[in-house]
């Protein structure tokens, strides 16, 4: 019983991490039809620079962590904005080329990060409280899980409120549905593209800092491995659907944890099977619109 509780709660925590990456992927795809393979690099750089600045401010302190998170978001957002303005925008409506460019940026960025920080994971220092556990129905849940869940919920709420109550949010929601018609109402939809990239990049950069808390290390590759799960989650949730991405993140991460524990480390296999099953039954994903 306590094992099940532990697996469920840590699964939700891992899902929170997936969501931070998947939210941006889903928004970017929904509005621009770009599968952004550079997204993992936003995460890695956010994690690395967040760690560099945070440990100077206060290694293993709340203040240092908070600064890391802010730096991670800022770095992720800036990296994403530059990517959109310099590369994606020039390839307007050329989706294949856009995807290829993001693959290139992803690969080049990881190589660059390796050049600077090396290819081995760097162990990070955790805030003492995050190293401890809290007992829930007999299960000893690592405290960093609460941080992950809390931050992901705040990010989800912030994005939802932004989409619902701002002019840009309105443009983005409309653009996800029918971009041509948004343009035909006299709206320069490219501003919305940049904003979506910025939001996605900020969430990914924040995800990078939280990944370093979760795994206890930062590395040039962290984003790349998380990106694969995030893509799966995005597709299962329905490309373009934020709520779908949130639900799928939690479902998949929980499933992964359970399979890893009860079915002899088959978590990754189970995820791929889940992806196949969803695509067979609902090709547009759980909450996706039919193409």
């Amino acid at each position, binding site marked *: 019983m306590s094992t099940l509780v532990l697996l469920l709660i840590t699964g939700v925590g891992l899902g929170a991490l997936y969501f931070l990456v998947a939210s941006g992927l889903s928004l970017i795809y929904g509005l621009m039809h770009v599968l952004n393979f550079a997204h993992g690099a936003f995460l890695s750089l956010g994690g690395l620079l967040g760690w560099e600045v945070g440990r100077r401010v206060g290694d293993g302190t709340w203040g240092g962590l908070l600064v890391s998170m802010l730096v991670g978001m800022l770095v992720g957002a800036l990296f994403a904005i530059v990517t959109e303005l310099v590369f994606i925008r020039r390839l307007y409506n050329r989706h294949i080329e856009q995807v290829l460019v993001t693959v290139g940026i992803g690969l080049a960025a990881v190589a660059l990060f390796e050049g600077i920080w090396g290819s081995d994971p760097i162990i990070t220092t955790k805030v003492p409280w995050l190293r401890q556990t809290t007992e829930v129905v007999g299960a000893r849940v690592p405290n960093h899980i609460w941080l992950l869940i809390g931050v992901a919920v705040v990010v989800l709420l912030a994005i939802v409120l932004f989409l619902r109550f701002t002019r840009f949010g*309105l*443009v983005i*929601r*409309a653009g996800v*549905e*029918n971009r*041509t*018609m*948004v*343009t*035909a*109402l*006299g*709206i*320069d*939809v490219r501003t919305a593209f940049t904003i979506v990239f910025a939001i996605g990049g900020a969430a990914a950069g924040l995800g990078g800092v939280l990944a370093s808390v979760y795994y206890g290390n930062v590395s040039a590759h962290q984003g790349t491995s998380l990106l694969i799960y995030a893509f799966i989650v995005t597709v299962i949730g329905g490309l373009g659907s934020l709520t779908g991405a949130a639900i799928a993140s939690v479902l998949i991460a929980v499933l992964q944890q359970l399979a890893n524990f009860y079915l002899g480390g088959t978590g990754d296999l189970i995820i791929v099977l889940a992806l196949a099953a969803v695509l067979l039954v609902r090709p547009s994903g759980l909450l996706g619109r039919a193409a």
Partner: protein
Amino acid sequence: MSALLHVEGLRARVGGQQVVEDVSLDVADTGVTALLGRNGVGKSSTIKAILGIIERDGTVEFDGRPIDRLRTDRIVRQGVAYVPEDREVFASLTVEENLTLATRQAAPNRGLVDELFPELRERARQRAGTLSGGQQQMVSLARALLNDNRLLLVDEPTKGLSPRLVGEVTRVLRTAAEQTPMLLVEQNLQVVREIAQDVVVLSGGRVVHRGAALEFLDDQDLVHRHLGVAA
């Protein structure tokens, strides 16, 4: 009377297929110019090409200035409103959100829109995707009429509407055209007769007739040859 919109040698492709071959036409600076032709001759594509929604080349001049190199949103912001075939309302947004999104000026013509479409006010919080076809058409027209435009491009506004609604929409179009010149694609020739002064007839992506509306509509032979129906 002079031309507000001047189109010459317009060509456009969709999906690798040439759908607008060579269109030259003028839209007068008052009243309604109707763009006619059988199904699939390229009427909608001509309008989309004027707006740059599909790739085009040729000359398009609006009020004497070329707009054929401009992005769609820049053209629209010059005061060219578009009411597309099949409405294209944002189904997941409410009626109110559809209208807010379409508003380009600080003081939109809310009074006019409320007066023309009282129903939309009652349904402000309803998702546009759950509206009837007729109500969606009202949203689509309202999105255009909220702003002070200099030209309206309206594509088959009465398509699929009941006779009563056709009358209603015709009335709205007539009111709108008193203020703003209009290029109107319309299959219902009775509507054309009621509100259009000029006609341009397309066939196979080319203009095959141009002239006064009533003269064309009263020529049974011409109408039959170009539209395949009796006027």
